[in-house]
């Protein structure tokens, strides 16, 4: 029996993940040990502390470029930039998740069997501060995402995928209002997610057969120096890509998105739209740029077609949506298409502009869902479009903020939507993918229509009897909204610092 050789572990580089996972474990203990009444405050404080500490750890680790823990994790510029983005967006999501003043008991509940509005439900809402399990689950999900963007071999990537997916499936099921819809969404997400995971895993197996290893560097070497049948390579690449395209909600693997976005509790939808997108694209970028750059000419047309399909499907279907959350879901699909255009540039600008886009879009979408949590009536959030008619007259401030975010989504100058789209399209043209940009611009034009229709609805329609009022946001939601809107504005007006940062970071380690 040979000596076991312990792999070299750089704890400093892993610290962001360790903090989050550690805090999540402590959170579970808190659930068990801390009395119910004070649990919410403790959990919220703990989660924020963990996210902030983790963010600090990312900043401390800046400039690190190494592969550690036996080749499983690569800490480099893109890793740290994306981890920082996930944590920043995650912190804002936590603000939305932690809001308890909008509704008695908060937006989450874990007793699926209790009928909404029954005596037991009312008593429970009064007694309990809502399901505090959401905090450790969120921390696990965020930790999994950090690992996902830093995974340096395909199996670690798969583990990370499951680590962040499972908590998300659970979180989706916890809505207090419209419980059945929420549970249905969670189940759909879980089934289809498992299905996609299977594709991913199968792809990993094929690639292992081709390359004789699963680390991204080994795959790169095998691609450069082919030994075995390329059917294994292309089949593997296609299946791994499908697993990732699913998480990033690209057509035709986007079908879960509208149902899940609509059914999940809105703060969780915000978390998925902002952070999951970063994580999924982070992994996709790493796989494409690190392992498969050698066959770029082969996958660019296929994935380009996927991008075109995604942009068109997202934009065209957004036109006829009547539910605000579904509308934003399709908008998120279309945005995934724009992101893939940037990613397919396969140059330094492509990498940096995609990362910039992820941050810019994340903040905008958080603000958008934050506002959706505020537009309520007696039955909870009023998400049907017709209910938003004339909201500008009743609550001009929020209608203004929402209009501004929609203009950002539509890519109007002076918003981050313009600068980020400009960046990814510019990178794609530079990378020789002009045809994608043409479709991107067409799609942007199409999708501007549903956004502007909402703006018109907000301002030019008379408020009806059924127009809900906008609740006064609690401190947390107000802070989240302010951050989201401000980031959307600042990244539109002075994008240079973040673009510079993303360009400095745009170098993968192999």
């Amino acid at each position, binding site marked *: 029996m040979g000596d076991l050789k312990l792999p070299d572990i750089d704890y400093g580089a892993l610290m962001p993940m360790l903090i989050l996972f550690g805090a999540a474990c402590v959170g579970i203990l808190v659930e068990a040990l801390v009395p119910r009444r004070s649990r919410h405050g403790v959990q919220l404080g703990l989660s924020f502390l963990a996210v902030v500490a983790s963010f600090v750890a990312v900043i401390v680790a800046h400039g690190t470029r190494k592969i550690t823990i036996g080749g499983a994790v690569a800490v480099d510029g893109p890793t740290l930039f994306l981890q920082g983005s996930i944590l920043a967006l995650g912190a804002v999501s936590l603000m939305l998740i932690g809001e308890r003043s909008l509704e008695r008991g908060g937006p989450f509940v874990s007793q699926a069997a209790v009928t909404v509005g029954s005596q037991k439900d009312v008593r429970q809402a009064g007694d309990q501060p809502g399901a505090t399990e959401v905090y450790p689950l969120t921390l696990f999900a965020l930790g999994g995402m950090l690992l996902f963007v830093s995974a340096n071999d395909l199996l670690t990537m798969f583990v990370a995928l499951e680590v962040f997916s499972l908590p998300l499936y659970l979180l989706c099921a916890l809505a207090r209002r419209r419980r059945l819809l929420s549970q249905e969404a969670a*189940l*759909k997400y879980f*089934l*289809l997610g498992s*299905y*996609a995971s299977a*594709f991913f895993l199968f792809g990993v197996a094929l690639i292992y057969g081709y390359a004789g290893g699963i680390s991204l560097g080994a795959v790169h070497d095998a691609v450069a120096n082919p030994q075995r049948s*390329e*059917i294994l*390579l*292309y*089949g593997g*690449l*296609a*299946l791994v*890509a*499908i697993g990732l395209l*699913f998480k990033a909600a690209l*057509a*035709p*693997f986007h*079908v*879960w998105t*509208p*149902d899940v976005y609509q059914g999940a509790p809105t703060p969780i939808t915000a978390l998925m739209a902002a952070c999951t997108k970063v994580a999924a694209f982070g992994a996709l970028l790493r796989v494409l740029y690190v392992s498969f750059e050698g066959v770029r000419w*082969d*996958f660019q*047309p*296929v994935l380009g*077609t*996927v991008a075109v399909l995604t942009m068109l*499907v997202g934009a*065209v*279907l*957004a*036109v*006829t949506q009547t539910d605000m959350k579904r509308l934003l879901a399709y908008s998120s699909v279309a945005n995934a298409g724009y992101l893939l255009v940037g990613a397919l540039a396969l140059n330094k600008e492509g990498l940096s502009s995609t990362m910039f886009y992820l941050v810019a879009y994340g903040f905008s979408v958080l603000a958008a869902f934050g506002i959706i949590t505020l537009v309520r009536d007696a039955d909870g959030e009023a998400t049907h479009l017709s209910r938003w008619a004339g909201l500008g007259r009743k609550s001009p401030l929020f209608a203004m903020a929402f209009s501004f975010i929609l203009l950002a989504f539509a890519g109007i100058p002076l918003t981050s939507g313009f600068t980020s789209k400009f960046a990814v399209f510019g990178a794609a043209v530079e990378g020789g993918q002009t045809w994608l940009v043409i479709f991107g611009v067409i799609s942007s034009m*199409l999708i501007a*229509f549903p956004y502007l229709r909402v703006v018109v609805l907000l301002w030019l329609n008379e408020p009806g009897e059924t127009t809900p009022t906008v609740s006064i946001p609690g401190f947390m939601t107000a802070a989240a909204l302010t951050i989201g809107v401000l980031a959307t504005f600042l990244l539109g007006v002075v994008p240079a610092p973040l673009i510079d940062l993303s360009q400095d970071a745009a170098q993968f380690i192999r």
Partner: protein
Amino acid sequence: MEQTVEYAHATGALSGIWLLVAIPLASAAVLLLLGKRADKWGHWLGVLAVAASFVLGLVFFIQLGGLDAEHRSAELSMWDFITVGNLHVDFGLLFDPLSGVFVLLITGVGSLIHLYAVGYMEHDPGRRRFFGYFNLFVAAMLLLVLGNNYVMLYFGWEGVGLASYLLISFWYGRPAAATAGKKAFLMNRVGDTGLAIGIFIMFATLGSTQYSDVFNGVTALSGTTVLVLGLLLLLGAAGKSGQFPLQAWLPDAMEGPTPVSALIHAATMVTAGVYLIARSNHIFSANHTLQTVVVSVGAFTLLMGCIIGSAKDGIKRVLAWSTVSQIGYMFLGVGLGGGAYALAIIHLVAHGFFKANMFLGAGSVMHGMHDEEDIRRFGGLSKHMRWTWLTFMMGWLAIIGIPPLSGFFSKDPIIEAAYARGDWTSWLFGTAALLGAGLTAFYMTRLFVLTFHGPERYTEQNKHPHESPFIMTVPLMLLALGSIVAGFLLSRHSAIPQWLEPVTGEGEHDPVMPPAVISILVLVVSVAGAGLAWALFRKGTALQEQPAGAVVTAARRNLYTDAFNEAVFERPGIYLTRALVYLDNRGIDGIVNGIAAGVGGSSGRIRRLQTGFVRSYALSMLTGAVLVVGAFLAIQLGWLA
């Protein structure tokens, strides 16, 4: 004109010239943004802001006077305004003798009119808004004269235009006011477009819009370029200053409150065109044809204004046409070039005083007469409004050029300079200016006599005219004082020509007749005109418009210029618009709507694929997966690539 143009950097106190613009701008922002909360004290803030600018302007002016003639300027570069490719535009200011004179006129006369407006607008619910716009105007006008490049000038130019439209249609509930605002806007667009294209040409040929670069570079340009450039600038100037052929908006602009007419449409904004030409004197002096065009425009407009003014019955209308005509004199002056630039500026300042004086006097008359404007319904007001009468008389004597009032010192030299143009055109332009002086005397006397003397012809509701409050008459007295002494002070020992010499250069005088003869001729013609009017209108006039000969009818109809505009521009424009609308509805909208319907329809159809069943979702994912894997393998096997 071979000397290079250089401006000294602003030093010491002069580096604070930006405050001149910033103070009224800040005040305008406060007044317009605070809304009703500022209603109680807003007007005083407005007055204070302009007065503060005046005091500062005076301090800077004295500072500037302390510098020697070589370096009598202060240029202040504040920040990069536009940097695109080769185009660099500074946000920069320039305080030199020319802008100094304008700053004092704008803020000085402006302060008095602001003060007057406190009283005049007392009962108007929109007084705060009025003062907000008024301050905005002052800030924009100061930016216009203080900019150190043509883009800054254009910035201010559009700013004063905006304030002007807002104030003309201040009483937007009245259709006439709204229409007048629209008319002013449209006619100014024509001129502004000319100015804008002129600035583009500067950038295209000289690569800069900075005054110093343009003036130094203009000598290197071809004659045609200079001519085109100058004509475009002239078009801009004519638009803003109400000169032929863009004069029609100015009389209609009198629909605004009277202080607006006094400040914007008589004393300051309408002289922006004169400023533009005086500032661009290096361009205009570089081409003789160009100067001839400017002189012709001036001479034609001054006669036109006089003729139409003689036939009008609204007190403000007559004053408006008189403004058109007096600015014609100024254009004549700046067109003559050389030393006549300074003469035009003297006339501009003097005119600022006596015209503001008379407009405010007219406002005072209307204030006491229930907003009656028709001079046929006045008469004998000298008994009821002593101060208004006395101050208006000073303005009247000043404008018709009776010595020693200011008009004599300012208008006379321009007529002399017109006779000194040097070739046969001396006779043409000199005589036009001389004739204008006689006509001016005629119609101004008619206005004065019909308003203040003769039998009372009041309507039923105007039985008891009354004098205006002190807050209105005090500015009148100060302006009247200005009307008396301004011309004398400005031209004494050639004060202004010497002061402006670093900017405009010297001129040479050699009139076709001895100056004394010309002076006497002017005086004789003026007195004759005034005497004729006095004799005709001493006993009042008919209360209704009487049938008259062709000339008078033409004058009443603004010499048919409005009819001409309507027939030549408006009607074809309307037809063109209708044709385009038709094309847009049927053609372009058809395509657009078709695409929209197509997208909506396909959206509706594809939407049905989203069934809500996990099994169909899984199937569509599987299909996608097969296609993606298939595509990769097809590439690998060489089917597609």
